[in-house]
């Protein structure tokens, strides 16, 4: 792995900083990861963490509404933010001449965002359009990330819809925003990452200049979202008015991604053995040999691996032909899992998975945006940004026996099954609350 040198520091107000200089191209990436995601939002306020992410772009003490976007883009840069189960990130990628400006913009909204009624109302409308676009008005919208956790988990943080119900979104108040900001957006609850074309000394100086006087507030106590695994197979049927074909997702619990990383990586490799490439077990069987399914995938984490703390979800999703009973397809999945539990996969089978992971991690490193975000999220979740450079080695050290053990643990009597039934007949009903 082409490891950048890493420098870490912590400011007096508690802000953790990761610096990864690399002068290959004259561009820089800047990101801030806050240690709060949709698992931390209050009951009755589903979707609030994501709604709040939108508000962080809407102006501050120093910047009018819209100015944030204009400054980034007129510097030649791009920006975005995204809300995950356990963190929320904000980032810019820009020509390196704009480094100080990007640091200013992130410090500015960490210090004094302008949270107003007008912006809140406007962004509730924008978020509702986002949900209509990505969930309500498209086939398989929210499948499986919104609906599978509702079956697999019992407690509010793990089970609820992170995009939010329209009724909850509409009830959000400016005071909710103030409380959320003061609780979770303290510098001591965040990681700043700078990657790309800069010198470490200059970056330190600029970071101290812009973030140094962001007032210290206590970080919230760390939260524990653990809950017992299901004691049986839990099933739920989800009618989808737009889906042309039936589908299902199977969700399992997996080891703690942080505390039991090596064991977690066994599941990551298992996902590749099962469903990555034509030669993988499930693709070969379901798509090519028996031709029962149209699409199959498997993965650690519903948004990808290294995105969440414990508990995290292992999932297998299949879209299949209407004339094939879903339980027949599930039977094939179970048979393949049983075969792996009985006989560990071969060395070459694992070599395929680990080489593709190595290539994929190189690819992420090559894209400055994903490199910056990867360093930041690993620092936040693992306290170790440098893990990004150790992952290829750790993944290739996974043994056939570990993969077999992971397969054995995916038990039919402790899992959730979400079945998507096509329900389109021209009389679509809007879900999620108000029209």
């Amino acid at each position, binding site marked *: 792995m082409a490891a950048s040198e890493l420098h870490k520091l912590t400011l007096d107000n508690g802000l953790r900083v990761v610096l990864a200089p690399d002068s*290959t*191209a*004259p*561009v820089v990436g800047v990101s801030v990861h806050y240690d709060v995601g949709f698992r931390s939002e*209050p009951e009755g306020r589903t979707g609030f963490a994501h709604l709040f992410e939108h508000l962080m772009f809407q102006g501050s*003490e120093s*910047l009018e*509404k819209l100015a944030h*976007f204009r*400054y980034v*883009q*007129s510097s*030649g840069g*791009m*920006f975005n933010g995204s809300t995950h189960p356990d963190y929320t990130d904000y980032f810019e990628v820009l*020509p*390196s001449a*704009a480094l100080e*400006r990007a640091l*200013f913009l992130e410090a500015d909204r960490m*210090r*004094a*965002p302008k949270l107003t009624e007008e912006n809140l109302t406007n962004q*509730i*409308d*924008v*978020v509702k*359009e*986002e949900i*209509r*676009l990505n969930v*309500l008005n*498209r086939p398989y919208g929210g499948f499986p990330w919104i609906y599978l956790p509702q079956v697999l988990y019992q407690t509010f943080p793990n089970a609820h819809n992170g995009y939010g119900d329209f009724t909850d979104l509409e009830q959000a108040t400016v*005071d909710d*925003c*103030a409380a959320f*900001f003061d609780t979770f957006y303290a510098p001591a609850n965040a990681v700043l990452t700078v990657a790309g*074309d800069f010198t470490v000394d200059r970056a330190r100086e600029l970071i101290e200049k812009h973030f140094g006087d962001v007032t210290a507030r206590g970080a919230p106590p760390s939260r524990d979202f653990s809950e017992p695994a299901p004691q049986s197979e839990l099933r739920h049927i989800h009618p989808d*008015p737009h889906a*042309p074909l039936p589908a299902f997702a199977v969700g399992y619990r997996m080891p703690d991604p942080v505390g039991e990383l090596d064991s977690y990586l066994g599941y990551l490799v298992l996902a590749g053995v099962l469903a*990555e*490439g*034509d*030669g993988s077990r499930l693709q070969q069987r379901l798509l*090519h040999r028996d*031709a029962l399914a*149209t699409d199959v995938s498997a993965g650690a984490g519903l948004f990808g691996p290294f995105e969440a703390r414990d508990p995290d979800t292992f999932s297998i999703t299949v879209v299949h*032909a209407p004339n094939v009973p879903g339980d027949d397809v599930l039977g094939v999945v179970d048979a393949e899992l049983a075969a792996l539990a009985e006989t560990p996969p071969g060395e*070459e089978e694992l070599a*395929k998975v680990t*080489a*593709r*992971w*190595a*290539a994929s991690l190189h690819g992420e*490193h*090559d*894209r*400055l945006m994903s490199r910056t975000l990867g360093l930041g999220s690993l620092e936040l979740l693992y306290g170790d940004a440098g893990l990004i450079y150790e992952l290829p080695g750790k993944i290739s050290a996974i043994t056939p026996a570990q993969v077999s053990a992971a397969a054995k643990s995916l038990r039919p009597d402790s899992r959730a099954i979400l079945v998507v039934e096509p329900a389109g007949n021209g009389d*679509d009903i809007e879900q999620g609350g108000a029209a």
Partner: protein
Amino acid sequence: MSPHRMAQEIGRTPAGPREVPPLGEQRPAADLGCVDTVLESGLRVLAVRQAAVPMVELRLRIPFAGDDALHTARAEVLANTVLTGTARRDRFEVDTELALIGGELDARVDPERLRISGSSLSSGLSTLLDVLADALTSAAYPEGEVGRERDRLVERIAMARSQPSVIAREALQRHRYGEHPFTREIPQPDDVAGVAAEQVRTLHAAAVLPRGSVLILVGDLDPEGVVADVRRALGDWSSDAAATGLPELPDVVGGDLKLVPRPGAVQSQLRLSAQAVGRTDPRYPALQLANLAFGGYFSSRLVENIREDKGYTYHARSALEFTPHGATLLIDADTASEVTAAALLEMRYELGRLCLVRPSASEVDAVRQYAIGALLTSSANQPGLATQLDALTSVGLGPEWLREHPERLAEVTTEQVGQAAMEFFAPTRFTGVVVGDADRLAPELGALGGVSLR
């Protein structure tokens, strides 16, 4: 939650508002080593060294138009099976060899060209080229693979056609170009079901040709050496015939939008389009900047109006869509049914305003910086650079265009952007479609006018 400050207190500090820092001095991108050559077979090979990571990115583009009514269906089956077995390897051996070099290859077809794209660890480049050459010269199209892929394709087409964005795209293509082959992006399921393996083999022999095609390699490689490797690996891929391009497209003519019913939809798709010009036209840099100011980036007039001010949409966008011999402007937004007509009204208003209240000097400076910066950031990684070079080579340009374009953008005047706005953004130049719940939309769209309701 614990006690907290009021929102007004959060948005205020003792020091008060601060000045936004100016930009520093920008270092230009390094020149990349590159070889751009045409082999004896007529294949153009462009190899560029960009070695931040030990990977290689590959793009092969083969002009692939056809006027046979069944061409689209056969081409689609071909793209889905060209990598499923050769004289030397079956589907699973192809996957295994690629996986062991951290590699992937994928074939896709559109009405204009067949594209094979992929990547691998740079240490595996010779295997990547060998698998590619094998598919190009001896793809076997085994009966079993063709049969299964054909069946899956029929299901995938049903899946695609249930997506509102696909419904809107097909309606727009028909509305703009009638029956021109350019509109045949997705085949009919019955046509696909009737494709035989032998027909796909015949199409491969007649149309998968090097003459007129372009191979792009970007990554941790030696450009001179890699061209020699390509010459060796693809030595058997040859033909006197040339790959087939699309016939000229008619210009898009302004007119009424067409309302396309999608009963029960909660959200509508607005798609507007007008004729534009491509990268080889001297007006292109000014048009590019005018488009950015209109709706080509977040800080544009359209997005600030219908998203940030009115909340009508999650995303609104205006983009240049490059066509075989030029380009069109394409404006799109998805909006809730109850604000669809209002969003269309605002789109037309912003089009008219761009012509009459032309982009100011500061608007032009902002989009200029954005365009120059975006070029820098998007070509700073291997897949991004390969994709850019793919687009450029399709109109006969090359890496020199990427190097020179910042200078062209720097020279565009505010006056030229204003002229481009007048020339290309007049509301009457546009046509398009609205897809949505027709019963709900028709009264308001009828009142607004300029929309054909049936």
